């Protein structure tokens, strides 16, 4: 139910009510998505989309940190062989 799918913003526009909308690509499948809740979003950003609404801009730096943490854990010998 609370499915959120990450997608790439390809285009932004406003509809006749002035609401921010945009075209978002989900691995090549394009859909019209409401961008009203992510006012700062730009073409090229990734957003998390739920039932036709972008709820959050995906933070690339934070996303990278997870993998850095994993690597560090490997180097510290928390894991078997390390990466």
């Amino acid at each position: 139910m609370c499915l959120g799918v990450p997608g790439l913003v390809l285009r932004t526009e406003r509809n006749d009510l002035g609401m921010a909308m945009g075209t978002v690509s989900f691995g090549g499948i394009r859909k019209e998505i409401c961008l009203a809740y992510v006012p700062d979003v730009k073409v090229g950003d990734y957003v998390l989309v739920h039932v036709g609404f972008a709820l959050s801009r995906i933070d690339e730096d934070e996303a990278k940190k997870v993998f850095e943490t994993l690597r560090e854990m490997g180097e510290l010998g928390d894991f078997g062989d390390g990466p």
Partner: protein
Amino acid sequence: MKYVDEYRREEDIRRLLESVAKTVTRPWTVMEICGGQTHTLMRSGIDRMLPESLTVVHGPGCPVCVTPLELIDRAIAIAGRPGTIFTSFGDMLRVPGSRTDLLSVKALGGDVRIVYSPLDAVKLAAMNPDREVVFFAVGFETTAPANAMAVLTAQKRNLENFSILCSHVLVPPAMEAILGAPGNRVQGFLAAGHVCTVMGYEDYEPIAERHRVPIVVTGFEPLDLLQGILMTAAALEEGRFGVENQYRRAVRREGNPDARRAIAEVFEVRDRKWRGIGTIPRSGYGLRPELSLFDAERRFGVDTIEAQESELCIAGEILRGWKKPSECAQFGRACTPDHPLGAPMVSAEGACSAYFRYGRPA
């Protein structure tokens, strides 16, 4: 796909599993409260690879499952009215009411349509001014901004033929109810990441304090879940409580302020009945009184329809984490996804349905 594939690499999953195994030294029970997370745990097999002393139980994390039976009956009553277009997300259509389901109403000629977004229902209302268009607004906090925007858009477009049947539930009050129940065995929570993209996690901080439990905001891919589980296990082992955020790429502490503003404009917090659990104070949203024009229950006078649950179903115990689906005598016998007796078997995201689908033994 970016932000999907890199969270499913077997090598990383194995490493995290090893780390969880090294971290856990005592028995712990951790609860997730999201049907999507239940699904990932089962589909990836993570539930079977965790250390035996770490039990992950599945809370009331499926809004479809906890929508009360009488509300399904009310939806069916509205959908059967001539001239009505009844719209819903696909997963509500097969949920059985007392006597029938929405899909059967459609088979008998009712105009029941699946929509991808509540805005599609608003579009239908604009295109069909002589018909009543009703949207079944079911969901957690994650879906509330979309449903709020649908109502605001209908209002701006002066659509008098659009209304919603509202069944919105909130996660933090359910967590409080579970932690406060006699016999509770949940010691830590994975908080549902997408709920927190909207609401943030400030509301979880007093719960963690009061009940001295760790709560880790967690994403939905296998790597996210395992990292969330690892963070929760580490906190439990070290005797720490409080809120941590695993899903940092999508969740900020304050959530999404614009979405929260829209929710506050359209909805107010109300007591809500949860299927399988009962009424939890201040655990749901209803339309604000000034927007009651958009309230389908009022518009069609169906708010008096009541319903009776099966007595064989132990959904209350499942949803509180007291029992696993496979411990129910009816599981896979009298109760299957095709003939569900109760809440967690009705939607694909329910815990019983996930156990059935992924072959967890009866």
